[in-house]
C-alpha cells in the first residue's frame, strides 16, 4: 500500500515498518532539485557559412572553426529544446582562441524557438564581447545571455552564431577560432 497520508495511517493503528515501503517505488524527476545543465555543440559539427569559415586545428588537439577578420562568418545549428530545461535565462559559453593578444571579439546569437506553423526567422538577437587573452596559446571564453522568454517559447530551436568584423565593438583585427558552443540552462535531472 502506498503511504500517501502518514498521519491517517498511524491514527488507524498501523505501525510503519520497513516492509511498508514499496521496493518498486521510483523517484519522480520533478522532485529533483534544479541545477545548471549544459548541451555542447562542437563548432566543427555546425553548418558553416562565409568565406574562410572552415574547420581547423589549433595547438595539437583542439579542433574548431575559423571566423575570419576579412568578412562575416556564421555557424548554424538546430536541436530540440532540452527535455531537462526547467526555467530561466540560457547562457551560451563559447570557447575561442586567436593569434591576437589584444582587442575584443564580438559574437552575435540569433535564436528561434519554433513549432508547427512557426517561421524560421530569427526570434531574438543577443551578443557578447570578450577581450583576447594576452597569450596567443591561451583559451578564451565568451558569454551570451539569451532571455528565458526567447528560449522557452516552443520546442525546436535554430541558433546562428555569427561574427561581423566590421562591427565597431569587434576590434580584435585577426581571425579567431571558435571551438565549441556550450548552452547552459537551469534544468532538472
Amino acid at each position, binding site marked *: 500500500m502506498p503511504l500517501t497520508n*502518514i*498521519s491517517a495511517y498511524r491514527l488507524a493503528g498501523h505501525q510503519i515498518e520497513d516492509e511498508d515501503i514499496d521496493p518498486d517505488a521510483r523517484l519522480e524527476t520533478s522532485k529533483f532539485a534544479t541545477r545548471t545543465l549544459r548541451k555542447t555543440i562542437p563548432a566543427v559539427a555546425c553548418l558553416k557559412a562565409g568565406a574562410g569559415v572552415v574547420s581547423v586545428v589549433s595547438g595539437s*588537439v*583542439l*579542433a574548431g572553426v575559423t571566423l575570419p577578420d576579412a568578412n562575416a562568418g556564421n555557424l548554424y545549428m538546430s536541436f530540440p529544446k532540452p527535455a531537462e530545461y526547467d526555467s530561466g535565462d540560457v547562457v551560451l*559559453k563559447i570557447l575561442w*582562441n586567436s593569434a591576437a593578444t589584444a582587442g575584443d571579439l564580438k559574437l552575435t546569437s540569433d535564436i528561434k524557438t519554433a513549432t508547427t506553423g512557426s517561421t524560421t526567422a530569427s526570434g531574438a538577437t543577443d551578443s557578447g564581447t570578450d577581450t583576447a587573452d594576452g597569450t596567443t596559446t*591561451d*583559451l578564451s571564453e565568451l558569454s551570451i545571455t539569451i532571455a528565458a522568454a526567447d528560449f522557452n517559447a516552443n520546442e525546436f530551436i535554430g541558433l546562428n552564431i555569427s561574427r561581423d568584423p566590421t562591427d565597431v565593438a569587434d576590434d580584435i583585427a585577426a581571425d579567431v577560432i571558435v571551438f*565549441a558552443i556550450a548552452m547552459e540552462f537551469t534544468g532538472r535531472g
Partner: protein
Amino acid sequence: MSITNFSAARRAGFKITNRGIKKTAVIDMTKVATRTLFMAFNPASGHIAGGAAEATDGIFAAVTLVDASTSNIYITSKLPEEFIVADVILTWYWKSATASGDAKFTARLCAKADSEDIAETDNQTVTTTVNATANKLNKSQVTFDSSKFALDDWIGVMISRDPADVADTLGADLNVVGFVIEFTGRG
C-alpha cells in the same frame, strides 16, 4: 533528522506525521548516486586531417583512417555538468576488410578551462588485434586518468593512426564508426 529505518525510528519513540514531510522538499543532486554516463560522437561530425576521409559503412557514418598515411580525427566539446572528477574512458568502434594484423592508435587529450594553455594534457596509445573475421566491428579503448580533468573543463580529443608505426601491422584501411566518452556522473 533523516529517517533511514522506519522500524528503528518507531522503536526510538518517534511518531511520523505529515507535518514531518516537507511538501516542497527536493532532492539535492549531490545525494544521487553516481553512475556511468556517456557522450557519443559521430566521427564524421569532427574535424578530419591527414589521409582521413568521410565514408559510409553499412548504415554507419564513418571516417576512414587509411593505410597509406597518417590520419587524424578531432572532436571538441565540454564536460557535462553531470561529470564528477574520475577517470574517463574513450572508446571507438572500427572495422576493416582485413582479418589479421594489429591497428595502433594514439589518443590525445586537451582538457582545459578559460585562460589556460591550449597544449595537450595527456596521450595514450593502444594496439588492437582486428577481428578474425573480416568486416566485423572492433573496439579500441584508452583511459585518461582523473588527474587530467577538472569540473567544467572544455575537452578536445584526437585519435590518430600512423600506419608506418611498426606496431601497426593491419596493412589495410579501417573505418571508425563511432566515439564514446564514458565518465562517472550524477543524474
